[in-house]
């Protein structure tokens, strides 16, 4: 079974530029999560989708971040414009959707903003 796929794995951009990350969850997983992981910290939830509905986006900085999950499968996370402080690893995870289900993480996208 294929795991959670993310691309790109690495991205270097200049500040004020836009950037987008893509995630393909495990087949059949209804719940999709985007996490932000800063160096030396644990992942922090940005947004959670149940199918195509964003059910928890309270931690998403909506002035510059946006996300979508069209058709309830793949998801895209966008930052526009990027700031130096956005440099981090962006992790996508998915789960079957039942409360307490294990979350499976992708390898992440390491973003460097210069």
């Amino acid at each position: 079974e294929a795991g959670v796929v993310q691309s790109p794995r690495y991205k270097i951009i200049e500040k004020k530029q836009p950037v987008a990350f893509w995630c393909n969850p495990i087949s059949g997983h209804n719940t999709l999560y985007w996490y932000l992981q800063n160096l030396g910290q644990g992942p922090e939830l940005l947004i959670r989708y149940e199918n195509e509905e964003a059910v928890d986006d309270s931690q998403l900085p909506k002035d510059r971040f946006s996300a979508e999950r069209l058709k309830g499968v793949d998801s895209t996370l966008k930052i526009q414009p990027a700031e130096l402080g956005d440099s981090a690893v962006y992790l996508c995870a998915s789960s079957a959707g039942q409360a307490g289900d294990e979350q499976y993480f992708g390898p992440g996208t390491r973003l460097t903003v210069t």
Partner: protein
Amino acid sequence: DQQVKQNSPSLSVQEGRISILNCDYTNSMFDYFLWYKKYPAEGPTFLISISSIKDKNEDGRFTVFLNKSAKHLSLHIVPSQPGDSAVYFCAASWVNNQGGKLIFGQGTELSVKP
């Protein structure tokens, strides 16, 4: 407000000995706890979990202990192997109210020396 804390950023253990990783939490609403393991350039992978109705869960070399009164959990690895060298994150969840949203600690980097 760090609701899940791992106060030891690193731990070094000799191969064959016991590794004990600790985690403290502040929110008494948490009712499900998990440990994730992370290798460099990979996403976290689920290791073991425990429900708040239990005080111990064992899976092979890995045992998680939960002390609800102290709001403390620990992960024991016996015997430790060099392949266990990784960053370990504890995470907590309110299963019934938050759809499985995970709050992660900062991580502890375990190094198992041959």
